[in-house]
């Protein structure tokens, strides 16, 4: 699974996620990536979010929308909301990662696996590419 979130110079956010799914999947199984609100969500009132990991648990927690709701309705900060959602996914037995960006320009990521391919760039932040 791959994903991208961005905030542009007008303060608008967007999210994109794309995947081949899980190895050896059967029965037309679809994970969270194409489900708006689960693996992908964007709302200028909160954040843009993209997920990766065990899709079934990101669906059940409505992870991407939940992260935005925790900000919009719960008043949480971006990283705080991201960590809370990953904690909820974990409490149901799932693992994976999230990336997020806010209209304010704040960025966040987190993962509960040993690794996540990730990168970030910006007009006023150092570029970073990492795996572990």
């Amino acid at each position: 699974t791959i994903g991208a979130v961005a905030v542009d110079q007008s303060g608008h956010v967007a999210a994109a996620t794309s995947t081949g799914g899980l190895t050896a999947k059967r029965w037309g199984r679809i994970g969270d990536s194409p489900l708006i609100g689960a693996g992908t969500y964007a709302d200028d009132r909160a954040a843009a979010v993209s997920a990766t990991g065990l899709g079934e648990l990101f669906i059940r927690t409505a992870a991407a929308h939940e992260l935005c709701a925790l900000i919009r309705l719960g008043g949480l900060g971006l990283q705080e909301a991201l960590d809370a959602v990953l904690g909820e996914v974990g409490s149901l037995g799932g693992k994976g990662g999230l990336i997020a960006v806010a209209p304010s320009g704040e960025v966040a990521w987190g993962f509960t696996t040993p690794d996540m391919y990730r990168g970030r760039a910006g007009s006023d932040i150092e570029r970073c590419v990492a795996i572990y």
Partner: protein
Amino acid sequence: MSWKLVIHGGCGAMRPGTVSKEQDEAARAGLNAALDAGSSILASGGSSLDAVEAAARALEEDPSFNAGRGSVLTADGHVELDAAIMEGTTRRAGAVAGLRTTRAPIAAARAAMELSPHVLLTYEGGDRFARDQGLEQVDNGWFVIPERAAQLDRVMAAGGQFDADIKYG
């Protein structure tokens, strides 16, 4: 106003010691290429929607990642592609699932958002819609790389269980 771009290339499959130096370098190069693709749009005042599509397209084309070319295989050995895109201003969204011949799944998702009245389009109908919008169609085998075929063989030899541990991305 500043701009920001954050990307991921998946998780769970790259335990230390399971990724060769070449794979590590190839993946980092792919992540940097995706950052370049999206950053050039944002730095020149372009939209976050164009930027995330460009970054995702770069990663879909890169066989290091489980999306587009280099995707994992289903139990019967073909590739099925899912993608979604969403913009935060009006909360328009587009998604595709189960595509087999559309080279750029994220572009198909955007076409669903901008050129159809729907959000999610799936399987043969989704590919047919993408083709009708002029998006490139390829043979399903174009998405398959030997490493993914070998991973499928290992999973099937072990009983074909659901890869809940996301060992293979």
